[in-house]
């Protein structure tokens, strides 16, 4: 069991995390955050392995990972 917590407001929608997720479970949301970025969202959270690649890659430190 693993879980990521994405800070929607810190996310700048750069998509870099989506590219490194081995499970391909990070996608860009259609909605906007307060800074008008499309924040990232997790789909199929049960597939998350907690590898933290996404968090490690995030330039805005918007992701926390629990395992």
């Amino acid at each position: 069991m693993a879980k990521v917590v994405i800070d929607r407001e810190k996310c700048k929608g750069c998509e870099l995390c989506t590219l490194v997720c081995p499970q391909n479970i990070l996608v860009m949301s259609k909605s906007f955050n307060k800074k008008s970025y499309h924040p990232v969202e997790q789909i199929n959270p049960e597939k998350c392995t907690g590898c933290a690649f996404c968090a490690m890659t995030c330039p805005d430190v918007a992701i926390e990972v629990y395992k």
Partner: protein
Amino acid sequence: MNKVFSRPKSLVDIPFTYCPGCHHGIIHRLIAEVLDEFNIREDTIGIAPVGCSVFAYLFFDCDMICAAHGRAPATATGIKRAKPDNIVFSYQGDGDLASIGTAEIIHAANRGEKITVIFVNNAIYGMTGGQMAPTTLEGQITQTSPYGRDSKTMGMPIRMCELLSTLNTPSYISRVALTKPSYIIKAKKAIKKAFQFQIDGKGFSLVEVLSTCPTNWGLSPQEANEWLDKNMIPYYPLGEFKNSEEVS
């Protein structure tokens, strides 16, 4: 469940001023993690440069000072000599370190100042809107090399790690990148080593981080990472150039 990844304590909890996908943020986080892991935040004095990361003073939760453009190694020297028990690091861009501040970095390195320098090479002047840097690649188009950098009149991009490694005194010099998780893990190790050298009272340490500037490169963050892998890493090889602990 345990938190296995969270914001380092040495990083103030405010949003970065950097553009989406800009590596400055990753580099800040890695430094902050190292300050946490060594538990040296309270004893650290950081020096922010002039460049996009002039705001670094806001982001690190330790004493900070903003240096004049290029002069961070001199300011760091003044601090470390007066406060030898503090940990002193400077954070500098490539315009800052390899152009206007070339003399300061070479001489701080040559004196073996016991400071740690984090050198962010994004092959461009980010803050001023994308002019040519001394590290801009051959043929690279910037505001001031609109037809591409022409080595005949503009010289070749300067490899600072290699140049500084010709000196005897520096203790640790290495170049890293951040375009994939494996690189990021290595980058963190290098930054940690660089601080370890200082903590151990050894000499000058520097980590060059190949970094992106999606905004001024005119690329998406993903394309910028790819461009860095394809163009910068071949010219700026990754690895350790100097490690005074390893007996050769």
